[in-house]
């Protein structure tokens, strides 16, 4: 008897992380002879995602994996699945606590910790440079309203004053997960502020956009730190232009989600929070990591 597993993803195609995730998920499912999958994409729209949950319930799949577009709005839909006796696994970014009762397990990165780690990377570098008492930082966040963007920003904003109390964050604007947009944002920052020592971006895609702006303006010596190490970010680190990031593999993310679902269906005991590790990566230790495939 094969296991029928349905997945509804957030927004495939919006960036290569999510696309690579989807590919990896399908590959992993194909590799497992016991698993058949229905792969859906909500295109970032909550209503569509809820409709997809309903469709999956209606199709009587054995388990549902959800990558929530909104960690709270999907709770009633998750409850519906729960009531229908279908186990739900949340992937990548968690749903709100009120929904925990209806969920078997969460599998994914810990975005708040990621934000914190980025703050630490930045602070350590400032200390190494001896500017931890005067440095000024600008912050480019992801698409406004997205859980991942909010959590990473929160982690960074909370942690930075703890580790480097004298570093000031002088401005913060969204870059919409978009390289071009963040390049524009950075251009304006550069006009506005003569002294910028560090840039934190919600992912490397945006970080590279900001880097391009700084290069075009001929401003040097700025420390760029990002998250979700993309191939472009990795390359920029190789060139010594980009300082550090958080290593997070969509392939691991996808495999972990599928494995969790399979384990649940096999009746195995699993922890409720299944964080996979997302380590710090900087120019110093990057040799330990493979270049990201996305």
């Amino acid at each position, binding site marked *: 008897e094969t296991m*029928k597993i349905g997945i509804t993803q957030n927004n*495939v*195609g919006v960036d290569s992380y999510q696309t690579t995730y*989807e590919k990896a998920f399908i590959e992993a499912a194909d590799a497992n002879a016991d698993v*058949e*999958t*229905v*792969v*859906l*994409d909500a295109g*970032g*729209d*909550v*209503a*569509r995602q*809820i*409709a*997809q949950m*309903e*469709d999956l319930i*209606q*199709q*009587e*799949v054995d388990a549902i994996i959800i990558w929530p*577009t*909104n*960690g*709270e*709005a*999907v*709770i*009633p*839909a998750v*409850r*519906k699945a729960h009531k229908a006796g279908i186990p739900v696994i949340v992937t990548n970014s968690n749903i*709100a606590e*009120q929904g925990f009762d209806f969920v078997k397990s969460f599998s994914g990165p810990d975005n708040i910790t990621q934000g914190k780690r980025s703050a630490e990377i930045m602070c350590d570098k400032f200390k190494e440079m001896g500017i931890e008492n005067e440095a000024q930082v600008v912050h480019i*966040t992801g*698409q*406004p*309203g*997205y859980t991942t*963007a*909010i959590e990473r*920003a929160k982690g960074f904003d909370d942690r930075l004053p703890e580790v480097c109390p004298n570093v000031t964050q002088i401005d913060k604007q969204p870059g919409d997960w978009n390289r071009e947009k963040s390049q524009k944002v950075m251009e304006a920052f550069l006009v506005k502020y003569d002294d910028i020592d560090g840039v934190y971006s919600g992912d490397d895609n945006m970080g590279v956009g900001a880097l391009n702006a700084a290069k075009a303006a001929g401003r040097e010596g700025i420390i760029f730190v990002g998250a979700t190490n993309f191939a472009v970010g990795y390359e920029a680190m190789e060139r010594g232009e980009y300082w550090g990031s958080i290593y997070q593999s969509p392939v691991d993310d996808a495999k972990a989600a599928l494995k969790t679902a399979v384990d649940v269906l096999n009746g195995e005991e699993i922890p409720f929070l299944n964080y996979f590790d997302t380590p710090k990566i900087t120019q110093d230790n990057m040799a330990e990591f493979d270049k990201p495939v996305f």
Partner: protein
Amino acid sequence: MEPGTLSTFLKRGAIWGFIVLQLVFFSIAGKYLSLSDTAFMDLDNMLLLLKQSAPIGIIAVGMTVIMINGNIDLSVGAIFALAAVVMLDSMTWPVFAGLGDWVIPVAWALALLTGIVLGAINGLIVWKTGVDAFIVTLGAMLGYRGLVFMYNGEQPTSHLNWTLVDFAEAQFLGLPTAAWFLLGTVAVVWFIMNRTVHGRNAYAIGDNREAAVNAGIRVGPHFLMNFMLIGFLAALSAVVFYSESGSVNPNDGQLYELWAITAVVLGGTKLTGGSGSIISTLGGVIAIQLLRKGLGHIGADTETVNLVIGLILIAVLFLDRQLNLKGKQELRV
């Protein structure tokens, strides 16, 4: 024949034909390609379809009115989000603390009021400044979205009230709540457009504004009322949807304007105003929803879904034109 009856219904038959075609196709293809054992045309699945059509559908009905009137409203997605924020947030306001579950109707009323007010702002600007509705609402799409973010920053606004969720998930006489709201909206707005003086005047204004003015119809108030109507319906759509989901992201409702317009045009309403049918718009909405659902059912991937939906839209338009061609006697212009 009075306007809006059977013969016009049949004239705009292409969209219904397309729906039937889809049902047949997905049923057959589903047999081979779907993992599911249940049939695509299963009654429950069809009811679900109606329910899932509600959020865009209710807005599309309003959009039909606006477009018949010769305008367009690109701000509906933002109004949708802002009304939802007001509804969900107001349930937590201390003033209403003593109301218990009676806070629900109060929150609904506030949300609907928000929609009406936002619509009225658009309507007044269009009326008083004479700036084209496209610009006014394109601006408002940004401006209202800004208000959404102002309200609660980037955080989602949430309030899960299980009484409300249970109500929204319930079924009356076999139909889900949201489906009732959709059908009710269609019926009421159909009635307004075909049976009331306001509705008929709206058609006249969209058809030939100068003639309407010459005949002494006051164009401005009609614009205003229709913008209030679509604001109300965008809010109603939010009320229906967020009663069930309980949390709104500040980005919610983005692109709804484009999907609503697509549904309206698929239903045969002219972009230039003056003609259009509420019932056919319902057809347009269902056709789109069905397409998404069907493609999911047969397991199409993201690339294919985008590609197919785009090409199908064009194909439907093409078919519709072929069906409505008057043959060789048509003037070649």
